[in-house]
């Protein structure tokens, strides 16, 4: 049994969830009636070794305001819906159980004005004091601003300070010295040694969630593909899964297989780019040229066969946007074989390069014990010994037939994250080879059913960076009432902070690159 609290039935007036298909990621829903029951449920998840996946608010006309929290355990995804009462706009903070909830709850406070009761951190997170009140409150809602809301313009963000002889601060950003997304890092250093680093984000906040409202499902899928450009396939797949669950329309088999091809191509392209960039950041320009070449060739093939270099708009609710002919399949397979031998050759060069390994090993160590306590997944989590990979733990077709081994390292440093990427590229290429050979026949798209009353759904996908989650609430006639896209960077940015102390200032770019987290997907 997933959880002792009653399932799915929910109290009256609650918008129902679609039911998972036999082949989709299993999930269950609980709606605790009181703060006490909510905390009790979350505490039990924690005790059983569950992990926090995401936490977000939702408030649309015709539905009670609620905070939704997603957890995972061995059996699947667990969704908690805590409904806020009309007179007390607060929700119990779970950050004392799951520390990674801190920023997610602060974001809810910024966007809705609800107070996370029990959270001592009163600082805003996404809010830079530039909006007129909490922006996610529906227009027709009579809203009482919470007394401790973070809506007053913030002059200076109160970073945690380190004091002592010879300690000084280096502020970096929001504009970085390179082609990088905007964000702020505050370093406290002694000489060349880093004592502490703290992040300040929200610079890329585009108000994506309000843009989802009242869009048609297909238009919303386009938007989902632009939450984080490097994870277009992952977000579009998770969003499409969510819509399909909500409308009860399973996609055709062939579409699922083609989606896996797209997902793995996105993973390989990003890993190749990262491996090149990591070489470059360690002063090895050769790596940048060679991996840059492999990535560019992949992107060009993407444009030729799928119509977009970053595979945007290739996955749609109901299936995929285009089919693959025999010729295309042969071309993709041929490219896989070629890339495989190239990557193997470059891996040997990386492994044998003393100067490169000297920069990689021991740098930016993410403690596997911390990764375990925080339940970190994705490349960074797996490089610190965590066996989390949805393709392995909750395989949807074709991952249930063509297995992808979990790539893992226990070292936790930059070199571990490099090795995990090398392994994943190799495994993905082998996976693609098998899938391309055995692609099932049939339609690649089936129009999802229309919903005649509000319905909710959720999709959960192993993107190249980690677990991507999309939740959607559909209204009648197939329009989106509300949607939430969760990027794995939310949970991994705090881990990056933990890896910094003790390293050299000059090593930070290398450490940051080895995580390669999304600013846009986080700030939304």
């Amino acid at each position, binding site marked *: 049994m997933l959880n002792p609290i009653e399932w799915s039935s929910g109290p009256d007036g609650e918008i129902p969830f679609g039911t998972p298909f036999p082949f989709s990621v299993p999930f269950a829903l609980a709606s605790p009636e009181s703060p006490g029951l909510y905390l009790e449920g979350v505490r039990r998840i924690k005790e059983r070794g569950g992990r926090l996946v995401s936490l977000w608010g939702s408030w649309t006309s015709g539905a009670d305001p609620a905070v939704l929290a997603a957890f995972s355990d061995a059996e699947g995804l667990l969704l908690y819906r805590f409904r806020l009462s009309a007179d007390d706009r607060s929700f119990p903070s779970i950050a004392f159980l799951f520390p990674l909830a801190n920023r997610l709850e602060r974001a809810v406070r910024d966007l809705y004005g609800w107070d996370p009761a029990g959270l001592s951190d009163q600082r805003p997170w996404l809010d830079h004091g530039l909006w007129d009140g909490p922006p996610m409150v529906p227009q027709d809602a009579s809203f009482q601003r919470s007394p401790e809301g973070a809506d007053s313009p913030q002059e200076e963000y109160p970073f945690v300070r380190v004091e002592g002889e010879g300690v000084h601060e280096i502020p970096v950003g929001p504009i970085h010295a390179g082609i990088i997304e905007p964000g702020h890092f505050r370093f406290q250093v002694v000489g060349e040694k880093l004592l502490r680093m703290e992040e300040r984000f929200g610079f890329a906040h585009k108000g994506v969630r309000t843009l989802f409202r009242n869009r048609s499902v297909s238009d919303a899928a386009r938007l989902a593909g632009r939450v984080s*450009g490097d994870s277009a396939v992952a977000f579009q797949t998770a969003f499409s899964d969510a819509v399909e669950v909500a409308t009860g329309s399973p996609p055709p088999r062939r579409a699922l297989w083609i989606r896996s091809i797209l997902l793995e191509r996105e993973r390989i392209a990003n890993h190749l780019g990262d491996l090149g960039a990591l070489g470059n950041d360690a002063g090895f320009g050769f790596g940048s040229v060679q991996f840059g070449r492999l990535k560019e060739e992949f992107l060009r093939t993407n444009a030729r066969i799928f119509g977009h270099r970053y595979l945007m708009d290739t996955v749609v609710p109901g299936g995929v946007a285009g089919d693959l002919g025999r010729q295309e399949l042969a071309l993709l397979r041929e490219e896989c074989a070629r890339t495989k031998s190239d990557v193997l050759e470059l891996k040997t060069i990386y492994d044998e390069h003393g100067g490169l390994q000297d920069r990689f090993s021991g740098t930016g160590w993410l403690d596997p014990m911390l990764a375990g306590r925080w339940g970190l997944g994705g490349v960074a989590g797996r490089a610190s010994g965590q066996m989390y990979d949805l393709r392995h733990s909750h395989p949807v077709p074709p991952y249930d037939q063509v297995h992808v081994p979990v790539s893992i390292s226990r070292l936790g440093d930059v070199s571990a994250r490099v090795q995990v990427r090398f392994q994943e590229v190799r495994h993905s290429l082998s996976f693609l080879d098998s899938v391309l050979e055995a692609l099932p026949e049939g339609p690649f798209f089936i129009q999802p059913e229309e919903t005649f009353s509000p319905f909710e759904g959720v999709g959960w996908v192993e993107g190249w960076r980690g677990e991507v989650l999309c939740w959607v609430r559909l209204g009648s006639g197939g329009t989106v009432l509300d949607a939430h896209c969760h990027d794995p960077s939310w949970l991994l940015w705090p881990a990056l902070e933990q890896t910094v102390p003790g390293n050299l200032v000059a090593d930070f770019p290398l450490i940051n690159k080895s995580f390669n987290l999304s600013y846009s997907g986080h700030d939304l």
Partner: protein
Amino acid sequence: MHKILLKIFRTGTLTEPLPEPGPPVKPCPLVRGSLAVRHVDAGSCNACELELHAFTQAFYAPESIGIRFVASPRHADVLLVTGPVTLAMKDALRAAHEAMPDPRYVIALGDCACNGGIFRGSYAVSGGVPEVIPVDGQIPGCPPEPKRILAYLEQLVSAENKD
């Protein structure tokens, strides 16, 4: 070491011939033969950054015709801006623009930078670079392919475009 040299030898030259120049662009005064570009991400989805990274790679080799990315706006001829300009990036973008030496040539790169793109109308974005600082040129696309970026910048450095 021999493996590296062998690989370099086998790979050969990747750089491709320059693309056909696109429609004429507004010239950048005082610039000839070299172009210093400062990129500012004003809240893009990061796809434009991926294309900028691809653009700096060997296939397009912008440095071979004198185009290079610089770390400070004080060294820049061109400000290359991506993203719909979020409210939180507005001041930073203005400051970067302010820090540039004249003539402060500004290019909006990608649909979002040109007019807000898919994020237009949100409470958190300005709706494109032209809403915040004066823009001299636009390279539309979601995201614009590297050869389009090259076709534009190449015209700014080439000597034929001057006088």
